[in-house]
């Protein structure tokens, strides 16, 4: 146990029996279980936590509540950890940020000497002219002005997400939040209470207790925790309030997405610092920070203290310090008359000097810590008179005013209006279902806070549908708690008004003088409030100062918005465990058993090829199809059943071709356009009955096609039923000269004779005892049967085909070989060989457009496009056999030094013994035999010749056997 610790009841969060050792800047530090990094360091006399962003000045904690970037440290691989919020655990490796060569001997501190050469708007003014200068300076500045290091070696962590639902969400577990949670629960609502600290009770856990005050709050907290309808999340931060009461709440490595019917914001208020020369020295902190150190962690914040007061609460701080054994040298009270509050009297009674109408004009440092202050009389707004001799102290506790934590309320749509009576912003226009309780809403004294919380809790429960009597509003009582704009410019500067961004008073004044005198302009030019904590601590001071220098009253100055995330969500929270579907076909495990290399195809997993080696597998699989028989799992194809009296007419309106004349038992290509005339999908339609089509769509396109079919028929209201049966059926494409023999060997009730079941026919029957739909189609250009069966029976059919095919040289064939097979036939893959602007004529698919049709989706635009001069054409090409490099997909077609098109597909065809592909070229290059140039890797130009498609079996004799 450290000798520096205060005796109980100080230190309500620490366990004095359990010490925890961690490392800071390579030194071993021992704290107590329950300490934060900052409190353990403070207990060991280490007050400096970081170097500042711009000038590398020593910085320590100000709020002890995570409100300033001073306390950000690096923990192992994790950057931007708030040292005043993160609990210590054994072997934490903590490092200070923004230093060169360590915190104590930071070489960057020399920057501070150059500060007069770093005016406000430094980056914009110095480095953006000439333009090239920024390129030189940016890496230097980024290195100098860092906050932590992103480690590429960071280990993977497990981050997950949870979805929570509540009638009433209460944000903040102080007295107001506790009262609201209890009142809402008692009214019948399911309540979620979110508290960012480790314990409930809010300011009651660290402020000077009123008689019976602590016991009352603890009793309230116990009732809340025991209530069956309340769920309490501690050490959980509500990072944002979004539309319709959707909350993001982080807790450890979990992101909770919360949907509530109503929300009570009881986030309280935090103290605001005073601004004077040297106010950023370690040892200068908010009065509430000194109280937190003492009451939460039993840390004595100093030995000799000066208290800077702007309200009566400062006197509680002085009394707390005195009782903890700190010598309070003086209370400097900004107020001309400190008044007759008993707390003031109690301080005077202890013999502590109280200087009325006095400010700290300057703090003096030594060894990176405050060592003395000079006091001076306040002579007007922001001005002081004759400066006194140094008063030695190692702690300055500032209690000069408050800022309500209204960020969530503004995110929820409430308006924040400055209030000249309290000098604190006031909440107005709360939208329905959003409620404020306690000091965030302007209600401060203990018993009124509980009353206000009860009111808000009941109102929230009533809004959520749990009828209950709702008391009237509680009158605000915020007057006299906040001293207006405690900002005291000093002739020699170094009065910091934004610690995160290292901004001094003259930076704000200069920016306003340069014309950046609207708060939004000022923020962006000066970067005030744009640091890691979004200026939570100091925005009000910047706004006040701007109002003072532009002689505007507060409402005209405006305010800035604190956006989500309030403290910060990690990328892990956002990336974490996802819910992207990963779909497996009914044959997935058979592919794995056959040693397939799997690949992602949309949301599906498909076999890319069988066996580990791509090139040899593809060659063997292609050869099997061309010479014997192959078997492809095509289960991922989209499958739609279109049924009803209007089925054929419906397809004619959706697709480009004719279907009313398609005979039952026949299959026809389908091509779908959007209203711009661009190709969006293709497949086939099989007419299995006069009023029933079985339609396929691409693997990635079926969901969109299905949705569009529903969309159009919501308007057309044709007599047709559309069902997406993609997952219900598996498909196996048996392809190759021996396919008829294999299907025959498996046994089928369908007559496979060429005359009885010709090319582009569809038949229903049984194959291997399984009910099946057979279509004589196939991308690959060989005799083949695409067999669709119920997914549950696909495995049995697959096994039967493997067995029957053994004597015929049957091989399973993957996606890669299938792509080669289709390219040899010159077939287009929608999305690869087409883009969003490709219309049928460009893709040489004009044959699939019903020219006599009066209408289909995309026809009005297509008619216009076809009437205009064409700009490009998709052609087949063969690469010059002497080409030094084989181009890849998307390599450019170059003509006279300009881009004339691009390669969309290319492959080495072992069947044909050459490299073939598809490319867009200019229309006058589309003639057979035209030679064009492609720029391949490394800028190498290679030539290719336009050849007619199909490349393989141009008469299509093989597929029609």
């Amino acid at each position: 146990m450290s000798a520096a610790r205060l005796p109980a009841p100080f230190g309500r969060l620490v366990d004095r029996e359990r010490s925890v050792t961690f490392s800071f800047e390579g030194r071993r530090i021992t704290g107590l279980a329950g300490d934060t990094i900052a409190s353990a360091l403070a207990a060991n006399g280490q007050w400096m936590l970081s170097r500042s962003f711009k000038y590398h000045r020593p910085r320590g904690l100000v709020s002890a509540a995570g409100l300033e970037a001073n306390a950000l440290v690096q923990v192992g691989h994790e950057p931007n950890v708030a040292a005043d919020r993160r609990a210590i655990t054994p072997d934490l490796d903590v490092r200070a940020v923004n230093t060169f060569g360590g915190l104590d001997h930071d070489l960057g501190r020399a920057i501070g000497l150059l500060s007069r050469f770093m005016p406000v708007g430094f980056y914009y003014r110095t480095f953006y002219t000439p333009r090239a200068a920024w390129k030189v300076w940016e890496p230097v500045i980024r290195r100098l002005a860092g906050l932590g290091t992103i480690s590429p070696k960071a280990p993977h962590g497990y981050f997950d997400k949870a979805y929570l639902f509540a009638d009433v969400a209460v944000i903040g577990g102080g007295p107001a939040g506790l009262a609201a949670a209890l009142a809402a629960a008692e009214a019948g609502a399911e309540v979620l209470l979110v508290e960012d600290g480790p314990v409930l009770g809010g300011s009651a856990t660290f402020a000077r207790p009123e008689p019976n005050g602590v016991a009352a709050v603890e009793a309230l907290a116990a009732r809340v925790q025991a209530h069956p309808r309340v769920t309490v999340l501690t050490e959980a931060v509500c990072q944002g309030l979004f539309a319709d009461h959707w909350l993001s709440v982080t807790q450890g490595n979990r992101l909770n997405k919360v949907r509530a019917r109503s929300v009570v914001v009881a986030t309280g208020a935090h103290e605001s610092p005073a601004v004077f020369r040297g106010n950023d020295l370690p040892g200068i902190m908010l009065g509430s920070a000194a109280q937190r150190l003492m009451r939460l962690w039993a840390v004595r914040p100093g030995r000799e203290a000066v208290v800077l007061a702007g309200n009566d609460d400062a006197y509680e701080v002085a009394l707390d310090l005195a009782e903890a054994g700190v010598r309070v040298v003086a209370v400097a009270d900004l107020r001309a008359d400190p008044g007759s509050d008993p707390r003031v009297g109690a301080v005077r009674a202890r013999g502590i000097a109280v200087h009325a109408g006095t400010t700290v004009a300057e703090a003096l440092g030594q060894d990176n810590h405050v060592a003395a202050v000079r006091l001076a009389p306040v002579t007007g707004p922001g001005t002081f008179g004759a400066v006194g001799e140094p008063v030695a102290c190692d702690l300055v506790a500032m209690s000069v005013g408050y800022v309500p934590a209204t960020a969530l309320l503004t995110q929820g749509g409430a308006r924040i209006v400055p209030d000249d009576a309290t000098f604190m912003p006031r909440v107005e226009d709360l939208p329905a279902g959003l409620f404020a309780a306690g000091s965030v809403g302007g209600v401060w004294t203990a018993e009124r806070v509980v009353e206000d919380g009860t009111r808000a809790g009941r109102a929230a429960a009533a809004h959520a549908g749990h009828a209950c009597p709702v008391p009237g509003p509680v009158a605000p009582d915020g007057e006299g708690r906040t001293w207006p704009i405690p900002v005291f410019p000093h002739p020699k500067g170094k009065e910091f008004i934004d610690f995160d961004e290292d901004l001094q008073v003259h930076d704000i004044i200069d920016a306003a003088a340069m014309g950046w005198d609207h708060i939004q302009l000022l923020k962006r030019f000066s970067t005030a409030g744009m640091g890691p904590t979004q200026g939570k601590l100091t925005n009000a001071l910047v706004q006040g100062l701007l109002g003072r220098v532009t002689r505007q009253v507060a409402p005209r100055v405006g305010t800035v918005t604190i956006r989500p995330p309030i403290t910060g969500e990690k990328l892990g929270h956002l990336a974490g465990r996802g819910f992207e579907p990963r779909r497996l076909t009914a044959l997935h495990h058979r592919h794995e058993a056959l040693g397939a290399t799997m690949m992602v195809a949309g949301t599906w997993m498909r076999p890319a090829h069988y066996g580990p080696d791509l090139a040899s597998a593809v060659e063997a699989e292609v050869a099997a199809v061309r010479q014997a028989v192959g078997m492809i799992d095509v289960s991922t194809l989209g499958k739609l059943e279109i049924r009803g009296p209007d089925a054929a007419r419906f397809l004619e309106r959706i697709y480009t071709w004719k279907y009313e004349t398609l005979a039952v038992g026949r299959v026809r290509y389908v091509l779908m356009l959007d209203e711009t005339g661009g190709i969006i999908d293709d497949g086939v339609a099989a007419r299995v009955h006069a009023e029933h089509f079985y339609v396929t769509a691409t693997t990635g396109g079926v969901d969109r096609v299905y949705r569009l079919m529903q969309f159009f028929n919501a308007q057309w209201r044709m007599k047709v039923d559309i069902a997406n049966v993609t997952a219900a059926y598996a498909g196996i494409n048996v392809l190759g000269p021996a396919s008829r023999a294999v299907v025959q060997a498996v046994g089928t009730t369908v007559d496979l004779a060429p005359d009885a079941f010709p090319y582009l026919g569809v038949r229903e029957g049984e194959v291997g005892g399984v009910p099946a739909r057979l279509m004589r189609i196939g991308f690959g250009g060989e005799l083949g049967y695409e067999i669709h069966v119920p997914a549950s029976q696909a495995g049995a059919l697959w096994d039967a085909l493997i067995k029957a095919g053994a004597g015929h040289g049957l091989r399973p064939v993957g996606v890669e070989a299938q792509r080669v097979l289709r390219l040899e036939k010159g077939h287009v893959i929608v999305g690869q060989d087409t883009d969003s602007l490709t219309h049928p004529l460009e893709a040489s698919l004009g044959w699939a457009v019903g020219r006599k049709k009066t209408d289909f989706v995309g026809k009005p635009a297509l008619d216009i496009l076809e009437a205009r001069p064409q700009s490009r054409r998709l052609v087949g090409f063969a690469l010059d056999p002497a080409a030094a490099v084989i181009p890849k997909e998307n390599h450019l077609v170059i003509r006279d030094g300009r881009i004339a098109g691009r390669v969309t597909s290319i492959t080495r065809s072992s069947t044909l013994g050459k490299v073939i592909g598809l490319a867009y070229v200019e229309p006058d290059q589309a003639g057979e035999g035209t030679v064009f140039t492609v720029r391949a890797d490394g800028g190498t130009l290679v030539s290719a010749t336009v050849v007619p498609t199909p490349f393989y079996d141009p008469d299509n004799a093989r597929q029609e056997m």
Partner: protein
Amino acid sequence: MKLMPCPLNGPRNMSEFSYGGEVRVRPEPGADPAVVADYVFHKHNQPEVTREWWCHVPTSTWFIAERNLATDEIVRTYLPSDPLFAEGGTP
């Protein structure tokens, strides 16, 4: 996340819905190219209550939402079979 009141499924998270564009009248084939181009490429997109197509994707339910584009308030939703659709007006 915003809630969308689906006329079939009640209020659901916006992430379950797909936007289908403003409700517009499609030009007949043979219409003037300027009319077709206006239909295909131009959006009305005014800060006022606008009729829009939305689809609840898990149930493939297309419906009309009357939404105030200035405030993002959803005024009402109904199925295209509702007489309100034929009426065509905004409230």
